[in-house]
Each structure stands twice: as structure tokens, then as C-alpha cells.
């Protein structure tokens, strides 16, 4: 087994300056009975080794569809990738053969799902499922696979791993199951992990433990991590940068603390204001009015305009591009972009 540091160095050597994963202008749509639902409309983002990107958005904002497209597990049909590139170490995965992509999955890119109980096969023991990673990808024997499964369970801090390796998924608690999912994703030490709402199905206290574990292992293995969530609280401690999605577009990207301190998009602002806070006890909690748009009928102009209290006529007619955000002196703020015609007013107002 290569040590973590060696692996990290190897990763860096292979990607001089280029990000680990880059999504360029991705468009995905779904054919439905009522028409074509445009789930992803020109998403761009990138993750480097050792970096955590949080993709934030409501249900139906296209965050999970983007992740499924990256993994190549989108159901097609009804899904369809109309344009775009997904570059993994500079190679467009959308142009690879199914077999080439399959070899990347698990080995180079792995995924953690929301509901660990339904994501683990109920009729196979967790030890078998963990060991399967080694047996399929590395041709390990049953015995080796079992030993490695125990090692992995230890690594994700499942108590008494040796005794529990033969247990079935339903015999574990929610938090333990999610640890097993994490262990499975980590098994082959991939370069990139996509975690699709990994803590949504868990209790709040367990959420924190699982997130801590994930962040720690990510740092240890020097992996890229795409964390998909709708929970602003989960993101704050773990992520390096955030991409906020709305109606299939990225509306704002920023380094995590800057986004929390000073959002440059009214949607982000609304999201941050709707987090309950202790010092506002007794006051009514803010909520963004209205509902997310129907993807079959996205409003003209900025998709957020019907819910935005700053909307102007320009917002209702023209789709805003993802602008580079500048500070008050006109200098570029690194990594900060906003798809709002009124970003200046929002950021500085």
C-alpha cells in the first residue's frame, strides 16, 4: 500500500495545474410526458485534489443530477446530456467507452449516497460488500478481502469491527451504516469522492460525527471531495468553496467563509437569512417566498426573479451570466462569481 503522502505527491505530479475534475458547460435534460425538463443548464465547476467543493441547492436544483452525470449513473433515457464536458484529469469522461468509465468508478471516483440503508445490499453482509471492492477491482482472495474489510471498518471507526464484519446492513445503526458507505467509497483510495447528501438521513449529532470523519479522511488521503447538500450548517466547517445552484444553474460560487459573510446573490442571501439563530429567538424566521420553479417552465430571465424582492425588468427578460465579483475598489475577488444582474447592490449594498 502506498503511503498517503506518496499518493498525494503522485496525484500532484499527474495534474500540473489542472484541476482533478472539471465540469464545463454541462446541460442535462429529461424527457417527461409533459415536455422536456431542463435539469442542468450550463453548470461549470472544478475540484482539485485535497479540495472540498460544496454544491448547495434546494431539491430539483440539479445538484444531484450533475453528480449522477459525473458518475455516469444517470438513467438514460429519460435523461439526456445535450452538451458539455466532464474532464477528469484533463480527459473528457463523456467521450469514454462504458468500460473505460466503469474502470474509473470505484477506483478513481467514488460516491457516497444519501440513504445508506437502501444503498447497501440487504442480503449481503457488510464485510462481503466491502470486500467486494477488493475482489472485483484488485482480484483479492476472500481471506484478503475480509481482512481489508475489517481494516476499513476500523478506519471509519466502527467499534468491534472484527466481530461485526459478518453482520448485515439492517443490524447497524444509521450512523454506522453511513460509515460503511464511506468505507466502501474509500476502499480503493480514489482521487475524488462525490458525497450526495451524506448526512441528510441522520440525526443531527450523528451528522456532525460523520462529517468530521469524512473531512478527516479526505485530508488524510488528499482526495477531492464534492459535497452535495441542502444544509448550510453542514457545509460551513468542511468545505473550501461553495457553488450555489438554482434551477439547474450555478448562481454563485465563493470561498466558504466569504459566502457566509457576504453573499453576492439574493438567493444565497435568502438561504442564509432562513437559518434559525439563537439570538433571534422569538422572532419570525425568514423564508424565501414562493416555490422553486417547475423545470418544465422556467421563468424568463433570471430563474429566481419571481421570488426575488430586488427583481427589476432586466431580471425578468435577460438571463444573467456568471459575473466575476469585484470588491469596492474594483479589484477581482478570487473565486467569487455571481449570476445576478444586481450583484453589486447585493454584495456592497
Amino acid at each position: 500500500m502506498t503511503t498517503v503522502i506518496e499518493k498525494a505527491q503522485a496525484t500532484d505530479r499527474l495534474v500540473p495545474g489542472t484541476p482533478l475534475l472539471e465540469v464545463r458547460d454541462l446541460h442535462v435534460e429529461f424527457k417527461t410526458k409533459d415536455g422536456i425538463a431542463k435539469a442542468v443548464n450550463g453548470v461549470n465547476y472544478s475540484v482539485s485534489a485535497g479540495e472540498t467543493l460544496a454544491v448547495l441547492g434546494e431539491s430539483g436544483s440539479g445538484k444531484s443530477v450533475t453528480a449522477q452525470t459525473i458518475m455516469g449513473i444517470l438513467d438514460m433515457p429519460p435523461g439526456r446530456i445535450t452538451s458539455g464536458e466532464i474532464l477528469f484529469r484533463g480527459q473528457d469522461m463523456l467521450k469514454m467507452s462504458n468500460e473505460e468509465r466503469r474502470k474509473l468508478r470505484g477506483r478513481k471516483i467514488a460516491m457516497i449516497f444519501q440513504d445508506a440503508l437502501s444503498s447497501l445490499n440487504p442480503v449481503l453482509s457488510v464485510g462481503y460488500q466491502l470486500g467486494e471492492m477488493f475482489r472485483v477491482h484488485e482480484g483479492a482472495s476472500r481471506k484478503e478481502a475480509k481482512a481489508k474489510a475489517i481494516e476499513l471498518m476500523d478506519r471509519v471507526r466502527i467499534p468491534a469491527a472484527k466481530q461485526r464484519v459478518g453482520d448485515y446492513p439492517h443490524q447497524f445503526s444509521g450512523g454506522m451504516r453511513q460509515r460503511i458507505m464511506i468505507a466502501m467509497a474509500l476502499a480503493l483510495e480514489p482521487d475524488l469522492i462525490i458525497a450526495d447528501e451524506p448526512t441528510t438521513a441522520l440525526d443531527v449529532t450523528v451528522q456532525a460525527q460523520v462529517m468530521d470523519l469524512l473531512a478527516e479522511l479526505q485530508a488524510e488521503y488528499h482526495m477531492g471531495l464534492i459535497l452535495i447538500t441542502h444544509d448550510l450548517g453542514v457545509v460551513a466547517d468542511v468545505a473550501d468553496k461553495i457553488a450555489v445552484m438554482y434551477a439547474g444553474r450555478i448562481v454563485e460560487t465563493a470561498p466558504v467563509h466569504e459566502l457566509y459573510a457576504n453573499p453576492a446573490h439574493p438567493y444565497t442571501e435568502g438561504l442564509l437569512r432562513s437559518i434559525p439563530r439563537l439570538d433571534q429567538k422569538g422572532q419570525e424566521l425568514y423564508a424565501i417566498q414562493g416555490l422553486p420553479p417547475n423545470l418544465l417552465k422556467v421563468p424568463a430571465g433570471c430563474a429566481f426573479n419571481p421570488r426575488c424582492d430586488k427583481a427589476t425588468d432586466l431580471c425578468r427578460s435577460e438571463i444573467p451570466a456568471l459575473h466575476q465579483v469585484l470588491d469596492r475598489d474594483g479589484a477581482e475577488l478570487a473565486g467569487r462569481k455571481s449570476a445576478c444582474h444586481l450583484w453589486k447592490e447585493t454584495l456592497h449594498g
Partner: protein
Amino acid sequence: MPDLIEKKTAAKIPAQSGSSAPAPKPEKARSLGSDAWEELRRRPIFLISAALILVLIVMTLVPGLFTSVDPRAGDLRNHYLSPPNYSHLFQADWFGYDGQGRSIYSRVVHGARASIIVGICVTAAVTLTGGFIGMLAGYFGGWMDTILSRVTDVFFGIPLLLGCLVVLNSFTERTVWSVVFALTALGWTQMARVMRGSVITVKQADYVTAAKALGASTGRIMLKHILPNAIAPVIVVATIALGGYIATEATLSFLGIGLQDPTISWGIDINSAQKVIRTAPFALFFPAGMLSLTVLAFIMMGDAVRDALDPKLR
């Protein structure tokens, strides 16, 4: 590095204690099969049906253990001679004699062979062919599903008994194997349908997506992740059908189109006994009773196995 991790692990273990109850028997690897076995061993229904089936299988393999009387040796002096008050067990005249003066007990014992072979072989063949076709149709969907499902529908439209009459009529000499062939050719559709439906449900499960996302191949997903989860309904249908196939074989033999006389079958004996049901009811009762008992044993067995194989029911 491992040292470092172990230290960390040790330090942080108490974080979650609720779920960490130590297993009672450490180091004992439990597979699904051994778990199911543990479960089955404690079920009286399983034990009774297993004992019955075991006896039937032994009867099939070595009928000589149960009787030394030749089932084909007739002595017309014994024409429908009734059993002598059951005062002595396991003798040639224990169950009485049939119309040609042959020992009914011996015929019942030797008749098990046809029924068990037909039941087991047809079920195996039907499960394999139907299961395979249903798996392909369910997993791949699209045009593959369309074609396979229509073919299934065409075969499903043929009535089992009528179809068997036609198929078996085309054989000049009908043996157990021709009955197996006929029943398989017409019976696989049921399994294909059950399997297809089951596979369609299972393939949408998150763990299938997860397996895909972790790089499992199509064959592996089908065999390791879909099949074990989709097989439960097939097992249930197969065991119920097993009893049904045995009954169908008896029916065909009863109708005179299944097995023919030198072969010994409960169906043939039931047929020849129907004419004397009032004067010699025992001639009908014993083969028919064995038939019912056999069908019942397999159905009970199927039920118990299903309950044990499904970890969600525990």
C-alpha cells in the same frame, strides 16, 4: 501509519456506543445461508416437511428399503382384496391390493419416483429457463423486454393441460422425461413473469445504483446484487408450482396421456381406482393421499425457506 490510525480509532471509539453491542459469538462468519439454516432448524413446519421430503427422496432412490414386493407382480386371487385391519405394518397387503392383485403399498412406494423426478426436474428447468429469460427482460428492458415479454405472452396463452396433451401426443413412447419436457416447455412463462417483475423492482434500488457507482460490472450487478434480492418471489412460486407440477403429472397420467402403464405413477393408479371407489375406496385413497401429502410437503417447505431467506422478515 497504521499505528497512528489505530491510536485515533481507539481514542474516538466511545463517540457512538449505542450500536456497538458486541456480537455473542465472535469470529464466527455467518453467511446468509448459515443464517437461514439457523432460522430453519427451529421451525417445526420446516422440520416436518423436510422429513417428509427426505422420506420421499429416499423412496425415489432406493424403494427397496421400504418394500421388497415387486409392484408389477399381480396375483388375481388378490383382486381388490382389502387390507387386513392394519394389524401388521409395512407388509405387502398393508394397503390392500389393486384390481390386478398387485400390492398397493409397493405401488405407492415405487410411484414416488415418477412424481419426485417430474416435480424436481420440471421446477429446476422452469426456474432456470424462466428465470434467465425474466432476468434479461427485466434488467435490460427496451426492445429486449418487448420481444421476450411477447414471446412469454404467446406461451402463456397456451393452457398448460391442453398444451401438454398436444405435446405428449407427439411422443410415440412417453417416459418421465417426455412429461418433464412438456411441462417445462409450457410452464416457464410463469417464472419468467415473476422474475421480470421482481428484477424490475430490484434494479431501481439504491444499492444497485451504488454498486454501479463503485464500478461493478453488469454481470456482477445481475448475479450478486439483483439475483439474490429478486429470487425470493421466484422461490415461493417455484415451490408452490413444484407441488402443482407433481399434481399435473398425476392429472396427465390419470387422463391417460402422461405416463404409461409399465411406469408406476400415482396418477395411473388413481385413474384405475376411480371405477371402484365405492367397493374398494382404499385403492384410491392411498395413492391420492400420498400425492396430497407430497404436494403439501413441498409447499410447506417453500414457505419456510422463503421466510428464512429474507433477512427483512426477521
